């Protein structure tokens, strides 16, 4: 997950807005998966918006990998991920089959994802609220 504390104040709100947008897209897909729980042959889809968000921040995909530092402009930065525009896409998972009718909706998994996604969205909303509180304090010079 992106570390919001290292970002400048204005950029943090943008990243959190993107995170909420991604959680919304993921929620749409989960709601669709749950609505189609009894549809024969239905394949679940999901939005991996967290990876898209990470890529948009130019962070390496593997957080445990040690970053190679450079101390000269002429050195090549190995594995330096370049930021890509944030555009999360829905991916259909057609590699698995759960039921005889070829559907792969696991209702327990979907409910867990739903609850996880809702908590994530509420957490980021709360963080964003705190950020705006900082803005307000700076603008009004009055601690709230």
């Amino acid at each position, binding site marked *: 997950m992106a570390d919001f504390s290292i970002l400048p104040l204005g950029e943090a709100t943008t990243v959190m807005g993107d995170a909420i947008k991604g959680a*919304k897209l993921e*929620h749409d897909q989960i709601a669709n998966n749950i609505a189609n729980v009894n549809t024969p042959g239905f394949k679940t889809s999901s939005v991996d918006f967290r990876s898209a968000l990470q890529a948009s921040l130019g962070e390496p995909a593997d957080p445990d990998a040690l970053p190679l530092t450079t101390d000269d402009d002429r050195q090549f930065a190995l594995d330096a991920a370049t930021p890509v525009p944030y555009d999360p896409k829905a991916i259909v998972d057609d590699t698995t089959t759960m039921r005889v009718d070829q559907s792969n909706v696991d209702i327990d998994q979907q409910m867990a994802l739903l609850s996880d996604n809702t908590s994530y969205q509420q957490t980021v909303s709360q963080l964003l609220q705190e950020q705006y509180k900082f803005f307000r304090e700076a603008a009004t010079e009055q601690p709230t």
Partner: protein
Amino acid sequence: MSYYDSVEVSASGLSAERLAMDVIANNIANANTTRTPQGGAFKRQLVIFAQKAAAPSGSDQVGASGDDDPFAPPDPFDPQNSNPAQVEGVQVLGIENDQSPDRLQFDPTNPEADARGYVHYPNVEIVKEMVDLMAASRAYQANVAAITASQNMGASSLSILKS
């Protein structure tokens, strides 16, 4: 694009599961019906669910692809036309009859008995209907939970304004 999109998706699931429960209730109510307007015993009915296909993103460009019929709507079941990012929920394609044979009971004195003395009872199995009813009811509850989650997410997004 709003939280109401996902509520509509879940609502399509609610109405589909409710229709499934209606049909199951009808099957149970008619478990012993030997006469129907179509003649013969009642046939067990099944609801056909299908994924509601989203309108492809380029569908407003009529004739842009250079097809034979520029006004032909794009085939929603063509995998090339389905954009998984656009979700539309579930739809009921129709209610079909179960084609399995009638349940026969030898009862020659029954006025409904055929020439060989058998009464044709519907191919409805109460136990199977009960299991289907339970599955539909649980799916309904799952959709309700998804709507509640949509509401919570919308409320927490709104609370950003209140900071």
